[in-house]
């Protein structure tokens, strides 16, 4: 597929950005700093890979950050009620809860054929509202969380946090699965041309359901990781983060119209955002510029891929 070449070009661009920043601030390339960069970007990477699945099948998940926040609160409340059970049960719980929330989105899109943007705009509010109901508006603070709960994402192993390792593992699974698994092939087919997919016996709606469910499960687990990492849970955590996640996908070359995108591209998109985010303070530019730059990058990325499609579109007028 032609996304290889795009990924390669984008990797070169990301590397160039990295080298430019390193040239000005040699300390940027220090292993410690890079590990921090990865740790900061880890949750974005996982979420963006989930979001990629949804966008590939012509959907979008605006509720991804709200799902994360709700599952984060569920994790925090669970830990407060049964402290000291370690990370395992919390991971399993958030995986299931997040998956269920995602499946709910998927069912609405699949069975009721509602437009994905409307469905997830609605569930975004519902999930946020549910956090409020669950927590009664109160915060769950660090002193109410058990040590094992807080420690899990921060455990260091070979210089990287467990959070970073987790993101790397998820990325590796995605890179391989998106290229080699039949399920991924079906996802690409359903997103690339739902009607032709139907002729092959692939139910595009079912593929959307699967994508939403996986995306939700990832968001759920990230909810726990987020809460543990920042040691606080409240209604508004990760507010607006869904837009960063979607931005990472678009920068990484996922076509908003579906059917096109690669896991490598999305990971690079996240790293690109991460590098900009962590280098701007070094240059002494306010964080608001980061939004500005992200916006410009998105527009340029979309413009480039639109051009590419324009060029490819064979004018095939059938006479009749």
């Amino acid at each position, binding site marked *: *597929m*032609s996304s290889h070449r795009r990924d390669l070009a984008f990797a070169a661009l990301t590397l160039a950005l990295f080298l430019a920043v390193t040239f000005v601030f040699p300390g940027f390339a220090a292993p410690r700093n890079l590990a921090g960069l990865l740790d900061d970007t880890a949750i974005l990477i996982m979420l963006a890979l989930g979001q990629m699945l949804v966008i590939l099948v012509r959907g979008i998940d605006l509720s991804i950050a709200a799902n994360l926040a709700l599952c984060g609160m569920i994790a925090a409340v669970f830990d407060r009620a049964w402290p000291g059970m370690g990370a395992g049960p919390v991971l399993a719980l958030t995986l299931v809860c997040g998956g269920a929330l995602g499946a709910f989105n998927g069912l609405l899109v699949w069975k009721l054929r509602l437009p994905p943007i409307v469905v997830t705009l609605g569930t975004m509010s519902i999930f946020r509202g549910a956090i409020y109901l669950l927590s009664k508006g109160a915060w769950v603070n660090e002193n109410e969380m058990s040590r094992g709960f807080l420690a899990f994402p921060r455990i260091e192993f070979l210089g990287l946090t467990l959070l970073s390792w987790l993101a790397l593992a998820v990325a590796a699974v995605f890179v391989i699965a998106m*290229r*080699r*698994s*039949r*399920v991924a*092939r079906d996802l*690409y*087919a359903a997103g*690339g*041309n739902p*009607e*032709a*997919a*139907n*002729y*092959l016996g692939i139910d595009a709606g079912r593929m959307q359901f699967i994508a939403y469910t996986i995306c939700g499960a990832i968001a759920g687990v990230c909810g726990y990781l987020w809460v543990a990492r920042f040691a606080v849970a409240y209604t508004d955590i990760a507010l607006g983060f869904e837009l960063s996640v979607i931005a990472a996908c678009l920068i990484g070359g996922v076509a908003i119209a579906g*059917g*096109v995108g690669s896991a490598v591209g999305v990971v690079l998109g996240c790293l690109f955002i991460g590098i900009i985010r962590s280098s701007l303070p070094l240059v002494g530019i306010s964080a608001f510029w980061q939004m500005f730059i992200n916006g410009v990058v998105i527009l340029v990325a979309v413009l480039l891929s639109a051009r590419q499609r324009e060029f*490819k*579109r*064979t*004018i*095939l*007028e*059938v*006479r*009749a």
Partner: protein
Amino acid sequence: MEHLLLTLTDIRKSFGGVRALERASLDLARGAVTALIGENGAGKSTLVKILSGIYQPDGGEIRFDGAAVRIADPQAARALGIGVVHQECLAFDNLSVAENLFVNCQPARRGLVNWGAMRAQATAVLRDLDADFDADLPAGRLSIAQKHVMQIARALAHESRVLIFDEPTASLSQRECVELFRIVRKLRDAGCALLFISHKFEEIFALADRYAVFRDGVSVSAGNVSDVTGDALIRLMVGRPVDQLFPKIETTAGAELLRVERLSRAGEFEDISFALRGGEILGIYGLVGAGRTELAQVLFGINAADSGNITSKADIALVPEDRQTQGSILPFSIAANIALPNLATLAPRGWCRSHDEAKLARHWIERLAIKAQGPAQPVHNLSGGNQQKVVIAKWLARRPGVLILDEPTKGIDVAAKAAVHAVTSEFARDGGGVLMISSDLPEILGMSDRVLVMRRGCLRGEFIRGQATSENLLRAASDA
């Protein structure tokens, strides 16, 4: 013909390598209905699009009221007074009828839409046509027949003097047709020049004053309808030799592979029965909208039948009508497209091996002479003919027993056509059964061992090879 309003002389138009029009000429007189007749692919729709400013001709001359004109875009067509009533009823369903009539040219006062004037003008035009619906109704609430009337009203609201009807009766009931004809005659008597495109001879003889016949983009004949018979028109439409485009291999029919009994699906087709044997190419001929594609979709399992039986002793594969929207995943590579229906064998444990996929793709690229850089080339930058070969390859790779081809050579060049026909013949020679749906008469005649003709969802005839001729197929397919 002193009262000619619009004349086209030697119009040419090609798309890529495909010639749609070549020396096409047409005269439209004031106060007359001219019928444009031709097979599917004769270039009628291309001509309509040129007249409505959507396509630009590659050559030739258009004169309007004696002066040479260029119809640069749809606005220019409207300014000249050329209006089109499209077969597929182009309407903005969420806007009112009045808004539909004045899309893009609303009556305005000081730069703001003058709703009162718009409604008044719309109502006046609708009253002129004796329309049975109100200008304030949303267009989405109209029936197809009413939408046709709305399109006519739109043309009249723009003071059109030339009106083109592109197969307007294809989806109308008998009563609605009568109503439409009344309006057409009224417009004719008011001095409009009318172009009427239809496959239905009864309509042509009832309505038209003059006729023009197109064949393969060339105008072959024109004259007064009163001087001609239906049989003569059919001969004019199809009169061409069937050449070596059809490498038919003689086979002996083997065992029965597929049996269809009294198959019906409401609104699409009814009471279809036939059997298909191994080694046989069974052609299904009919006009667009006869229910052939819908039948194929039921046989393949896309839709379910309402009643009837399908007994199949073999795997069925379907090469659908539209290779771009139904047949292939355009962003996918050739290899990935061919692999898609074959993943059960290529990737039995859920993991794809690109090496095996590329090998399979290379086999079919060679076998069907697909012109491509290699298995990794995305299908969207292949030519139409090569895209079609990929779609055929992906299904043949499954080794089906029955192959359904729906318009297998629509819009592809002659070389690719011959290649598709060759692989079809070889498939039948190797014992497969082929169901070939086509509106291309030479293709049907050249390839089929037997031909079924469908009209309006029903079987209207069966002809064995040798009996089937252009004339009797066309007669069975149209309402002549």
